[in-house]
């Protein structure tokens, strides 16, 4: 795993811990089934991601994102896909 992917994952885990009180879910664990992470939580998560990466996603991107928010790995995949410069942004966020 690249170091930037690790950084993104670490930040997502931090958000889950601090915002959703979900401690260290498995990377491929079904967040809804195992942790009761529902559609409202998914929208809150997108807001947290926007804050973290200092971006604003459009409505279509967000709707599409909801289908990826099933597992931690799915979330990280999506972030890498829609934010090509996620590496730089996450290191900026970590150092902020």
């Amino acid at each position, binding site marked *: 795993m690249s170091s930037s992917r690790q950084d993104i994952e670490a930040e997502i885990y931090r958000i889950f811990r601090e915002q959703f009180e979900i401690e260290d879910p498995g990377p491929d664990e079904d967040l809804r089934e195992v942790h*009761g992470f529902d559609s*409202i939580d998914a929208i*809150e998560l997108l*807001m947290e991601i926007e*804050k973290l990466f200092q*971006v604003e996603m459009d409505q279509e991107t967000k709707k599409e994102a909801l289908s990826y928010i099933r597992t931690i790995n799915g979330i990280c995949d999506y972030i890498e896909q829609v934010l090509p410069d996620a590496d730089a942004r996450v290191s900026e966020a970590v150092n902020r």
Partner: protein
Amino acid sequence: MDRRVVITAASAVTPIGNSKQKIVHSLQNGVSGVLPLRHDDLLADYLHCRVFGTVQEPIEYGFERKYRKTMGPVSYYACHVVGQLLEQSGLSREFVSSGRLGVAFGSTHGSPSVQRHIYKALYHQEKGVSGSLGAVDYLKSMVHTTAVNITKMFEITGRVICSSTACTTSSQSIGYGYEMVKYGMQDAMVCGGADEYDTTTVAVFDNLLACSTAYNDRPGQTPRPFDDDRDGLVVAEGAGAVLLEEYEAARKRGAPILGEVIGFSCNNNGGDLIFPNLDGITRTIQLGLESAGIGPEAMDFISAHATGTKMGDVIEARAIEQVFGNSPMVTGLKGYTGHTMASCGVIETIMTLYMMENGFVAPTLHLENIDSRCTGIGHVTQLKDKAIDIASVQNFAFGGVNTSLVLKVPAL
């Protein structure tokens, strides 16, 4: 279908205590729950009124995040009292989720502290990512937030009634819950109301010159219902819930019966939205008696709305005198708590039930010199060891809404 309706459980959070024991102790010992207004970053420093009826006993909620995420402070209070209520009731989970149990619960305007957060976001200088609304802000703040957070937490699937008529919110909750059970639409109802600590409500009454301002240095001396030296109401926070059940079902399952609801009335003054109206209030009281099928001579005790305002107390005293004369004992319970707004009807109902159960009548706190315009009725100025068989709880709200609930110690 016309069924008897009884109250089988009660729970409250009030400025004078959160348990029956504490509330009864406060009522019997003249304890006031009014404290100096807390500082906030919005209005507190600009208000003339600097006192507030404040919940003082700490509450350990222990709600899981899946519930907390849609709750503002007002829903914390609401879910806390209903959690205690259902535990006290001994109702089975199957019944609670059967669709035969409904909820009638409201607040003055949802959660003002969450609404404040929303307005801050809306007027944030840099709109966009950092100034955006949360996904659940509406669910936390909306006017029916208490009722639906209750249904979610306790998996209640019956009817939902969400009255939001300021000071008659929870008396309407009980009244409409009573009608639901009486006419067979539901077999039981969780009824009540809640309001959180909120300076915007103080500002509303402050602007209308209706708040107490002369006792800022002596908070425990105000409000003073019916007293010559009263100078206005004191806004307060609180919550309360009662469980209404169909009598036969309650008896069959061996539920303790705290009281019977035998009548309810609600009308509107049909005119001014602020000033109390003698004809409207008198008519409400008469309709309450008609609904209960009793004459005025049967009434033992009246829990008066009595907020401590100059005109409101006079009009209410005149209405009571017109209907009852000076026979029933009359107490203004807001002298202890301040005006708990959406929860005042249910809190005053619960206090009345506690007095019925314990055989005493609390006096109107701070009623030292009765205003000459408020005389002619049976003011209680000293603690009395006296049984109450039939009582009424009167509440009146902005918008000209009036209610009267009639309660009875049930003949088993």
